[in-house]
């Protein structure tokens, strides 16, 4: 083998250690493409839209990615998001203080995550099946507590909490003409991404999360409580999904029985595009964040090119498969 080929192989292997690097390259290519092809893409309005639309899904993705790294799936996040939204909306409409309603909704979400985690770790049923089941069950709960109807916030005065969760940042938006679309949800997403990334890369808990997903037997033999780590990640994942539901409700002021449907698949797709392994033990939240931003940018860009939404689905699917193909090729030995 020539030195050039050897170096290329070495470079490829180094890239394989950082699958999020591939996501970053894809991200830059797609960004450059829309900058040239879509009119109005390089405007504050369009770019902040990308962030705003990525943020609610992004909060869900962080939990799903972390759980996937610990070797488990959660397909019930979309339904959990809806349950949290209903609990929040109905509590506030019943006169509960908004902050209390928020805590209540988050606790309910955490319990839904705990149920997923306990079923998976205690029964040994694969999380894919378990959470497919709880997805249907939690969706049923959302329908039941909402009476099958949508629930809206109807009072005249919006609580401050809605602004804190997902208000527009007008002083910043008005700096631009036409005005940009920054919302507080982006700040929540960014803060959670940074904090959870640090937890994953720089704490014992993060180390255990990787170990539990990479080789549960080895983790157990070293004294790591495998089930505890998994259950905690299920709880984290569901709580974040619930939080995403609250952020979304604070913006839209309504919730319907179908809310959050499909979010579970977007979350898995964004994680995988971002280099998180389907079999656990590999991935970063930086990658998963890039993955969800990439999907959001794709949607925004194609809309600006006046292409129908079906095209977005097709392109997103193609990028998903391509990402996995590239990462598989990168980590090949020869």
């Amino acid at each position: 083998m020539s030195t050039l080929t050897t170096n290329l192989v070495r470079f490829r292997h180094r890239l394989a250690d950082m699958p999020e690097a591939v996501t970053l390259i894809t991200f830059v290519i797609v960004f450059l493409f829309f900058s040239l092809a879509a009119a109005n893409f390089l405007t504050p309005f369009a770019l902040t839209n990308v962030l705003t639309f990525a943020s609610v899904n992004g909060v869900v993705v962080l939990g799903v990615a972390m759980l996937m790294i610990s070797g488990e799936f959660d397909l019930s996040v979309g339904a959990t998001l809806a349950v949290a939204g209903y609990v929040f909306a109905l509590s506030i409409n019943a006169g509960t203080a908004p902050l209390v309603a928020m805590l209540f909704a988050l606790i309910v979400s955490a319990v839904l995550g705990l149920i997923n985690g306990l079923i998976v770790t205690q029964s040994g049923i694969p999380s894919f099946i378990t959470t497919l089941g709880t997805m249907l069950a939690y969706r049923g709960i959302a329908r039941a507590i909402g009476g099958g109807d949508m629930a809206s916030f109807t009072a005249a005065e919006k609580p401050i909490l809605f602004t804190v969760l997902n208000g527009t940042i007008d002083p910043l938006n008005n700096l631009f003409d036409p005005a940009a679309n920054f919302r507080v949800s982006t700040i929540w997403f960014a803060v959670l991404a940074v904090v959870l990334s640090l937890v994953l890369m720089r704490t014992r808990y993060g180390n255990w999360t990787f170990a539990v997903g990479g080789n549960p037997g080895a983790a157990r033999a070293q004294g790591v409580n495998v089930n505890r780590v998994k259950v905690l990640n299920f709880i984290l994942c569901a709580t974040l999904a619930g939080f995403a539901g609250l952020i979304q409700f604070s913006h839209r002021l309504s919730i319907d029985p179908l809310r959050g449907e499909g979010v579970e698949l977007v979350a898995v797709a964004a994680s995988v595009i971002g280099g998180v392994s389907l079999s656990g033990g590999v991935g970063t939240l930086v990658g998963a964040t890039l993955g969800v931003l990439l999907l959001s940018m794709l949607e925004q860009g194609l809309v600006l090119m006046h292409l129908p939404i079906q095209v977005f689905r097709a392109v997103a699917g193609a990028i998903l498969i391509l990402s996995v193909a590239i990462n598989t090729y990168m980590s090949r030995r020869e």
Partner: protein
Amino acid sequence: MSSNGNDTPVVRMENIVKRFGTVTALDGVDLTVNQQEVLCLLGDNGAGKSTLIKILTGVYTPTSGQIYFEGKPVQIRTPADARALGIETVYQDLALVNLMSITRNFFLGRELVHRLGPFNWLDVKEMDRRTHDALADVGIEIRSPGEKVEKLSGGERQSIAIGRALHFGARLLILDEPTSALSVAETRKVLTYITNAKERGLSVIFITHNMHHARMVADRYTILRQGKLVGNYDRDDVTQEDLADLIMGVREV
């Protein structure tokens, strides 16, 4: 044996019985490991070697029987209990997480942290340094402690798992088939680590199928067959042929 404390066996397992439902995996087995001794646990597939070791390491709880560690009766309910006593195990497949770095494996479950704000953060630099030094100390050279374990050979992986056990102050090192998937050169290295461990004052239980490897390091043999103890034999009292016959149950010595 004198009443001197150093002559107390590291571990004594007495009359261990383990049943899984109606199947009796171990039927009243005894096992003794003396101070600074390499004990080879021999037996064919299904003889009960693994079950016995998993009881000692807290993976299984025995149906009945008693374990003494350094002369004191102990209950070992979890792998963490075993570790707290100083029993370190290197499993053939369950030693390391291949997708993680050497350092992250080395300190898994015992990560070094420093406090900053509300969290304890991993002290990666210090762990890297200690991993490198600790492995160098037992004669294992690694390229970089940040390297992923999947890039290493089978022998290097075993070495790191053994180095880790030695570093964390094991009193008793259990090696479960450490040489079964290794090349000749790598096997020789691993056998050297076993001898080194003994010279450092540890006791070792070495589980193997390979009687040739057993003979190279063992002080004593304990042989199991079909869940029962066949017997204990000093290294010099039996030949390799005797061992083979005892394992298969062709004859008694």
